[in-house]
């Protein structure tokens, strides 16, 4: 057995063990902490699959931002945990569920083992037209050029999620701000971290976006890093979330999908059809659209984590 295979098997076992802990951990808080570790380990698996773009996304969004969201929720739900513990299903039902889940796993494992090698692929088609987009990263080309409608609609889903979260606000808080108010005396350790990290993080986030045209990275990953920087500032209570009625906030939330859609429709006039780019101008247009998507992601993710408005609007 080669060293690499041994490492891969070790990594697989570790991922599985941490995943099992998130399911079987006693408290919700421990489970969430395990889930964050699981997200980081999973991104190593993605790197081993040569999918560095996915690894970056999994790290930033799957582990990082989801982790922040769930840790906050677990802390607030702590009082409800003991009540829920009485509702755990009986032993026989759990055994039945375990058998069912083993069956699902066995079927999926069978499918994985029986896959043809090499499998069906769209890589040649992606490579063929890559030069026309002017991009070097095929994943970015798929996201913004070949399957642009998917990506645009996904931005719409993000906006809809924000609308859904905000609509859960009690009436008296509507128009107010989510999250905690700015603290008069922020907690020193957090405040220090929140002053040191963001300058670096903003630089890294914009670099990941810019480099994403040719190297692994892109608007999703860069946007998630920028979002994390804003979240750190809000968590340290050096700044507070804007009121949900703020015009700039709403413009930033819809900027990504709106600009994307506008250029998609402009494709009818400038190029050969919906979501097509004029030859020779594809790369600057793609980067222009991506810049607005970066803004939307960087604003949407913290708003989703901050939740519905919790303070009355200022007169």
């Amino acid at each position, binding site marked *: 057995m080669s060293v690499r295979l041994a490492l891969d098997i070790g990594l697989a076992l570790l991922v599985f063990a941490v995943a099992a802990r998130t399911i079987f951990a006693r408290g919700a808080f421990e489970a969430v902490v395990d889930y964050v570790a699981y997200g980081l380990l999973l991104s190593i698996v993605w790197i081993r699959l*040569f999918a560095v773009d996915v690894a970056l996304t999994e790290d930033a969004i799957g582990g990082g931002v989801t982790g922040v969201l769930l840790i906050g929720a677990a802390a607030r739900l702590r009082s409800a945990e003991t009540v829920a513990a009485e509702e755990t299903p009986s032993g026989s039902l759990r055994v039945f569920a375990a058998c069912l889940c083993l069956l699902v796993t066995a079927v*999926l494992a069978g499918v994985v083992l029986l896959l043809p090698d090499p499998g069906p692929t769209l890589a040649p088609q992606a490579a063929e037209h890559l030069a026309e987009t002017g991009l070097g990263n095929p994943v970015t080309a798929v996201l913004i050029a070949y399957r642009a409608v998917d990506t645009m609609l996904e931005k719409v889903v993000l906006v809809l999620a924000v609308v859904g979260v905000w609509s859960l606000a009690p009436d008296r808080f509507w128009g107010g701000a989510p999250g905690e108010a700015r603290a008069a005396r922020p907690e020193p350790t957090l405040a220090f971290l929140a002053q040191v990290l963001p300058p670096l993080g903003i630089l890294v986030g914009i670099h990941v976006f810019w480099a994403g045209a040719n190297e692994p990275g892109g608007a999703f990953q860069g946007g998630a890093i920028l979002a994390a920087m804003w979240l750190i500032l809000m968590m340290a209570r050096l700044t507070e979330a804007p009121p949900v009625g703020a015009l700039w906030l709403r413009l930033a939330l819809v900027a990504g999908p709106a600009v994307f859609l506008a250029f998609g429709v402009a494709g009818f006039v400038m190029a050969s059809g919906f979501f097509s780019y004029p030859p020779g101008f594809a790369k600057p247009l793609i980067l222009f659209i991506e810049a607005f998507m970066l803004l939307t992601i960087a604003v949407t993710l913290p708003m989703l984590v901050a939740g519905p408005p919790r303070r009355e609007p200022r007169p």
Partner: protein
Amino acid sequence: MTQATLAGLIGAALVGLGLYGLITNPQPLRKNLAFNLIGSGVFLIFGIFARKGAAAGFPADPVPQAMVITGIVVAFAASALAVALVLRLHEETGRATLRPDAWTKPPSDGAGSE
């Protein structure tokens, strides 16, 4: 066994594990976590499709990769909405449970004196 197959097998195991958590754990937040495990298992199986589709000088087919990236972001948006719903339920009733009779009972002793 190649790395891709191994990753696919982890994916299969994660789907089963997540499904078990989704069925047996009564807390909505833990169900959300379990559902995220199922999601990442499915994404890993996409990963093996991508890796097996390596061609034209790319180490992996970019199309499934792009779909997984989209999927991760949408999964986060759905999780955030679910968490907001659970927190609001907790604010209103003092408990976080999916039991249908939870709405009619006050959180403490079930005597109905609100």
